[in-house]
């Protein structure tokens, strides 16, 4: 393969990894701290993507993207807060089954509501940054490159939040030793709501960032959710670094899976083969810890 083509597909994989990382990191963060698998995570991604497209197009394609981004992330965070306070608070500590079913029901409700509000058809918007670069004979969209940088920045910001702030310290305590947290006088109720809202905002952010580069409809959350699961499970649920590595693996596998006509129908199948292989060797993921 010529190096230009290789770089093209590698960059394509990075671009996929970028938005998938943001979504998966939110899912993983919520699971790590709250021990809840949020089946409605993809729905938050979908709602934010739809909201951002509608708002951006209303304000004028391109320049309207930035206010749309803020509006959409706020909507996702607000829905997250409502879910956490009304439903999740009642199922903490229950069996995983109850949590899976409860959040799954929420996913159905949000999906149905989105179809009622936005209609079943797909929508598109244009990227806020136009233009393209040519490297080694192949053309790259500038927006995709910006997306990769943005994901890296968000990753670093999350790392800083987790390891440099009081909130981050409490979240890490919730991940590693919930009993200690209870004993240490932290307002656990508020902390849980905060973590879930951050997770919801990350789902929304992922949706907004990817929205200009694809068609958006009320079903896009279903397949992203499965990919986010694959990533956080490969990386280890609860680990942000794991989400990063997992996203890179999944993004590149999808991208290089598309490289030949013989394999491109099976690009997604490869992701699940990789996931199955990783879990067969390490059932709790690359950076995860076994659940007791």
């Amino acid at each position: 393969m010529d190096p230009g083509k290789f770089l093209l597909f590698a960059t394509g994989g990075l671009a996929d990894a970028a938005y998938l990382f943001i979504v998966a990191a939110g899912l993983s963060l919520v699971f790590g701290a709250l021990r809840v698998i949020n089946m409605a995570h993809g729905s938050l991604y979908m709602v934010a993507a739809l909201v951002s497209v509608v708002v951006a197009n209303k304000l004028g394609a391109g320049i309207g993207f930035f206010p749309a981004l803020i509006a959409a992330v706020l909507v996702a965070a607000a829905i997250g807060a409502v879910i956490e306070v009304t439903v999740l608070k009642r199922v903490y500590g229950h069996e995983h089954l109850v949590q899976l079913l409860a959040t799954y029901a929420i996913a159905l409700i949000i999906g149905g509501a989105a179809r009622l509000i936005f209609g079943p058809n797909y929508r598109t918007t244009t990227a806020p940054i136009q233009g393209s670069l040519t490297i080694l004979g192949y053309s790259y969209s500038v927006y995709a490159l910006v997306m990769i940088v943005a994901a890296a920045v968000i990753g670093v910001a999350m790392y800083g939040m987790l390891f440099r702030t009081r909130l981050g310290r409490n979240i890490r305590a919730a991940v590693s030793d919930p009993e200690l947290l209870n004993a240490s006088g932290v307002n656990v109720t508020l902390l849980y709501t905060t973590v879930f809202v951050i997770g919801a905002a990350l789902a929304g952010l992922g949706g907004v960032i990817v929205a200009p580069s694809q068609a958006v409809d009320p079903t896009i959350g279903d397949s992203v959710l499965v990919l986010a699961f694959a990533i956080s499970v490969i990386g280890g649920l609860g680990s942000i670094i794991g989400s990063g590595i997992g996203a890179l693996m999944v993004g590149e596998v999808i991208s290089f899976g598309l490289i030949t006509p013989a394999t491109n129908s099976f690009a997604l199948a490869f992701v699940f083969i990789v996931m199955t292989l990783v879990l067969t060797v390490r059932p709790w993921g690359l950076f995860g810890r076994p659940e007791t």
Partner: protein
Amino acid sequence: MTSLLPRRRADRVRWGLAILLLLLAAIVPPASQYLEAQGLIESARFQIVLGVTALILALWAISYNLMLGYAGMVSFAHAAYYGVGAYTVAILLQRYNISYYAALAIAPVAAAAVGIVTGFVALRAVRLYFSLLTLAISQLLYSIAEGWYGLTGGDNGINGITAPDRLTDYPTLYYFVFVIVGVSLLLMFILVRSPFGAALLAIRENRERARSVGLNVKAYELAVYTIAALFAGLAGALFPLVQSSVVPSMLFWTENATPVIVTLLGGVGSFLGPGLGAFIYTGLYNSLSRDFPYQLDVLLGAVVLGVVLVAPGGFASVPDLLAQLRRRIVGEGPVATEVETKGEAIQMIDVTRAVEAHAIQAEPVASGKVLLKVENVSKRFGGLRAVEAVNLEIHEGDRHAIIGPNGAGKSTLFNLITGRMRPSAGRIWFDGRDITGRPAHVIARAGIGRAFQITMIFPRLTVLQNLQYAMLAHRGRTVQPWGLADRIYRDEAMQLLDAVGLGPYADLPAGQLSHGDQRAIELAISLALGSRMILLDEPTAGMSAFETRKAMELVRRIATERNLTLLFCEHDMSVVFGTARTVTVMHQGRILTQGTPEEVRTDPEVQAVYLGELDVEDKEAAPA
């Protein structure tokens, strides 16, 4: 006891409802035709097809509940096996011109074959990670169905499938499906009440306990997963009778919503509940999708959320709710099943009778020979040496205590002996047989029983079932997929329960008993297995002084009279010195000394270690 009466009444209501449901399902075609003739419904054909759809859904959902309700496994791949069944029929009919009936026989086998291979992979993980792996498998199968144009027609699917001529008459079609679904349900019903079903319930309730009574947990999970895939494949194979096309989206993970919702509606706790759920769902879905096509998902989601948060028992819990309501109206006092026992059972232990109970008669054998030999065993966790070069010989008939400060490696050593962990080095022999690193259930079956530090019982099974199922598992009876598990070893288990004072609570869910009584169940399970050697990890933790004395008296008497070998660790020194013949002291993963209780008690080194450590513990405990 009067408390058992309402339970039976609820059971009768449940059986009545089941028969009523079957009768109603049986008269769908003539009833529809009658209603059409009376002008009450527009089309009898439409109603009959709806009925067929409900029957297929009932089969699908009940097969799902084999995993969810009976084994506690949440799978997201069940739609995929349904899809494999449907695709198999479609491909065989369209590409190979095989008759529908032959295809109908092949499809479930194909689904089971895919099920056993993918299930094997998914069962590498447990619980949540198992669920997520099934999700991946589901999407993998979906990707294949969508991508393999040559075989599956890709995203167009396979169209124009026709039912055989003989089934074009609607009532005939209905009864054809009715008989197939009926026979399948009967087979599954026999299965869940059999000793095999008992093993599933034990696994659902407590995996660790199930393993320690001798169940190969993964093998049973794989078996039920494959059986569920088989029946899902059969349901999928019936699908082309009512729909002429098969498409890849049938395998997409979100399709699992249907069996999950139906099972929840009907009730995970009952066998036929999901069948009832299937009819309700089909009717509801049909009218809702006609009148509110766009609000459908929101409504379904709200129903699921409501069921999960408010009535986790689904429609099948209605008889119980009615029984409760009736009692409230009649004023019969509180519901018996909500009463907690007060821990009096263990105080009623009749040691003499317990010893005579048939269930706990271990083989009497000459003592003196080495039963368990631990040879140079070490266990390291990363850099931490939890157990280091331990040598230990336990003689048959000995009562051997292991003591030592917290973190001395006692529990790790127990875990190594019982197969919960593999040693990093060294060998373990039991009765001349090398058991190093063997799986826990194999070691349990070889004759090493175990009672845990925390209470390990099957909480939602009755006290009697706790014992019966443990016996079934330990004696290898749970491979049998027919017969009534609840009738096997009943008298034997009852005798033992009476002896340990738990007789009056035999029919209560074990989880509702007090802590002390649950410990008594735990002890009874260990004794019921007839193991030659029992490992007790702090057997009296959480018991009162009186309960402790009673429990240890029982253990001691049984050990003496049946020549049972005991290995136990305990913090309560009065228990240790009152029960043990030999005491081994562990410190920092190594064996410090061994001897009679008197020798150990006076050993200056032991005193130094113990007093030093106790000081530290006291200091740690003080500020809290």
